[in-house]
């Protein structure tokens, strides 16, 4: 760990100001990912602005504005609190399931909602400074492209980076069309639809998101929806707890009679960002909720997959997982 200064911010305004002044400063919230990366010499901030005591942890109904009738999750709310909050469990069980599918109880108790969105890839080449990694050190090359890439991307990767984004929570947020609310140094508030929040690696894999330096995530807003009865988060992994997804699927349906009125599908473990399965969604809408429809939708989405040396299994697994997640959603989460 390199030497750094530590400042405990009193309020959001001063926290943002402190960060904006120093291009090498970082916010510290739960610290569950940042501190690990600092110990490994991957992240090298020279200043940490501790925002963990700012008053930004409330979960509340949204009374007005674009997301009226939805809920707002404070940027500094703990993952555990968000997953277990009555409003979340009643109206967004998909989100609750996704959060609880991630990390471990201890980590979720520390990790914050905003921090969860900003966690970095678990690509082993990113984590070891002796290895090449364009995300950690642009221009050094991608260790995983021709290396060990069983856990890596099958969608949207570039020659510069094949890493996947690790969060489960953000996959559910993507399916639920969440909006990330940020405050900038100039005091302005900005609303970023979650679909625009994350990036594909392209030529700049060092950028995980479109958040700008000095911006603070104050809240995550979820619009009102009618998916609560028929949604499911499926996470396929190498062990049943405390493992990142091989593939995960957040599926949410609104069904009238047996006809699908609306469908939302997002995938984790397959791309540099939560992967919204728009092709699959298009096929589902207006159709009957049958296994045959689900299979067609899954096939349509996975047909575009471009697997690497060690992860071809993710195509078949993704296919099956979409079908299973949709079936589970239809059955209200029961197999």
């Amino acid at each position, binding site marked *: *760990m*390199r*030497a750094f200064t530590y400042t405990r911010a009193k309020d959001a305004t001063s926290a943002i100001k402190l960060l904006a002044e120093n291009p090498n400063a970082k916010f510290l919230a739960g610290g569950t990912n940042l501190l690990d990366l600092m*110990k*490994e*010499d991957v992240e090298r901030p020279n200043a940490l602005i501790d925002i963990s005591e700012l008053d930004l942890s409330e979960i509340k109904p949204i009374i007005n504005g674009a997301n009226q009738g939805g809920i707002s999750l404070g940027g500094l709310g703990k993952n555990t609190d968000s997953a277990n909050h009555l409003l979340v469990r009643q109206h967004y069980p998909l989100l609750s399931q996704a959060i609880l599918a991630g990390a471990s109880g201890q980590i979720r108790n520390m990790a914050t909602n905003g921090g969860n969105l900003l966690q970095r890839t*678990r690509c*082993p*080449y990113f*984590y*070891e*400074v*002796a*290895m090449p990694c364009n995300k950690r050190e642009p221009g050094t090359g991608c*260790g995983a492209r*021709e*290396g*060990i890439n*069983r856990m890596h991307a099958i969608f949207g990767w570039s020659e510069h980076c094949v890493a996947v984004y690790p969060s489960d929570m953000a996959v559910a947020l993507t399916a639920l069309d969440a909006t990330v609310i940020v405050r900038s140094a100039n005091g302005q508030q900005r609303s970023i639809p979650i679909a625009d929040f994350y990036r594909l690696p392209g030529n700049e894999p060092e950028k995980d998101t479109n958040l700008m330096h000095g911006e603070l995530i104050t809240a995550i807003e979820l619009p009102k929806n009618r998916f609560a009865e028929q949604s499911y988060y*499926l996470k*396929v*992994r*190498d*062990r*049943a*707890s*405390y*493992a*990142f997804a*091989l593939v995960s699927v957040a599926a949410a349906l609104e069904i009238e009679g047996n006809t699908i009125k609306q469908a939302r599908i997002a995938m984790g473990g397959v791309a540099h960002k939560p992967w919204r399965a728009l092709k699959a969604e298009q096929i589902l809408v207006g159709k009957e909720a049958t296994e045959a429809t689900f299979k067609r939708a899954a096939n349509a989405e996975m047909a575009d997959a471009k697997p690497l040396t060690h992860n071809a*299994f*993710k195509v*078949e*697994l993704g296919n*099956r*997982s979409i*079908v*299973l997640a949709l079936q589970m959603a239809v059955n209200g989460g029961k*197999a």
Partner: protein
Amino acid sequence: MKDIPKVTGTPINRIDGIAKVTGKAPYSMDHPVKNPAYAILIKSTIASGKIQEIDATAAEKAPGVIAIITHQNAPKLNVKGGLRGGALLQSPEIEFFGQHIGIVVAETFEQARYASRLITVTYDKKEPKVDFDNLADQARLPKDKEKADARRGDVQKALSQATYKVEEVYETPIEHHHPMEPHATIAEWNGDHVTLYNSAQIVNGAQTATAATLNLKPEQVRIVSPYIGGGFGSKGGQWANLALAAVAAKYVNRPVKLALTRQQMVNSVGLRQHNRQKISLAATADGKLTALVHETTTHCAINDEFIEPCGDCSKVMYDTPNSLITYRVVPMNLILPTYTRGPGKSTGSFALESAMDELAYKLKMDPIAFRIKNEPDRDPSNGKPWSSRAMVQCLQEGAKAFGWENRKFEPRQNQQGNYWVGYGVAAGTYPAHQRPTSALVKLKRTGDHVAATVELAAADLGTGTYTILTQTAADALGLPIQNVNVIIGDSDLPPAAGAVGSVGAASYANAVNDACVKLTQELVTKSGKQFFVRPTAAQLMRSEKITDFQTRVDSKPPERAEDYSSHSFNANFAEVAVNKSTGMIRVNRFLAVTGAGTILNPKTARSQIIGGNVWGIGMALTEESVVDPRWGNFVTRSLADYHVPTNLDIGQLDAIFINEKDEHVNTLGVKGIGEVGIVAVAAAVANAVFNATGKRVRELPITPDKVL
């Protein structure tokens, strides 16, 4: 005076339990020393070549840095002193990725780690030999004579004539021990004597190897290791970090604390090697084995050989007139492999017991009946009688307890919701030995109160050594357990065997028992009286009004122990549920039925067995250390990447012990349980996966992608 009930064989709680859960049990780094400095190891970032230059200019100027030690200024050490794996800073040669190439010593751990990152090293790189798949065909005959080809009869002929046979290759990956307590040492010099606080499964072995490496006499080195936070073989033979802590402490003339980080564990303290095992089995139509061939190909270090004995189970498990066991090995630029729980047996039995299951299926025989049909009445490898062998009993009692009759013979016949459910069985074994061990027993009487202190340089890996020795001494002396104090884990104590190879309990308990028996006899002699019923030592202390008495024995195995073949045996039963869509596997139930002679404490013994079962399930389903074949580095360096099973992966675990009296193995009839718990677990799980899904996975671990 009323008799004190015997405690040996009863499930008393762990003697050291309270100290551990309250944080009072000192592990290596917890021992108080004055003014310690902190060291961190610098590691190579290539797997093969030579260090050209080390630029430590910036590091030397970094805050808190006291010293930087590399091959350029390290003292001359004896590289053949007995520490494993080289990496003692004696030359610029690099033999594996992550080899120690230096030490940074600073005032704090953080300062040392920071400074270590300011060091730049330039290398003459060579192409590393790290890709086992490409190198396996270059494997050579082992140097180790015990790994020479072992042939009985004519396997070629038997195989060519057989209608029923299996010829398959089974792969097990590199695994790491990853004990919860990473390897750590505090080194403190006093003149030309050094005390090393360092977890050691073999206390005296750590002492002699470190002394020889440092060019000291054994008595100049003291190893203090009262508690061990897991070892699993990685703290048996010791590694360079132990001597380098002493080197650093000498260099800076202060006590030094040197701990490995989790990430450094993958290339510092050995590993279980990747084994490629070909099994060829042949049988008659009625299920009698006619040939068993077990051919292992594996890797070792570039300049040192260690080979897991994967063929060991195949030597003793089944009766067959024709048998061939071979090993081939290819040196690679990876750290020296080493003993890992159930060394050779767990990996070897995965291959053998999977093949047995495959052949039973071809024969349309129940796999338990098939095994019983081939039960040998003597050790097939040497013709010796068994000291005891409860294999059949384990299988039969296990089948009954597990509900084996509910198993469907054909796979994919048991569907529960979205899961295929399957049952698997596998048989395991591990040799039982007693090793020479000394013990000192001291009695002290105050009024009517008699207390005992038992001293020996034994080790407790967390397995229950303190507890079983307290029980053994209490019974042998006629004392309640609270009057017995067991002191172990210090090389200043009488020398003892290591807690390795399942010899700990047999060696230690017999030595303590022998010492107590001898002490009692000496008290009888001292009294000058004759007794119709022999009194206990405690009674004699009181009746003869003796205040202090002590004796020591140098205990050895019984003379005729070598006339017998002695092994623990067990039967393992697994029920798995495999998700039909995702391939995720859960072990619903696991049962191990073990015949291991006298069980000194059923509670700690059960923990040992189910602990082994859990690791075996990890071996079957989750654990794998992955090497990048271009550079020789491990990409699985943390416990987030190297998966051990979690509670959610496993349902119910059960252990049953056969009531077995072995009168030949040693005085107390103890056979050892540390290793046998893991041995046949992976095969039982893999066989259950086949029974569930019809998919035979011959390459561990069985991750979801392999059963899709």
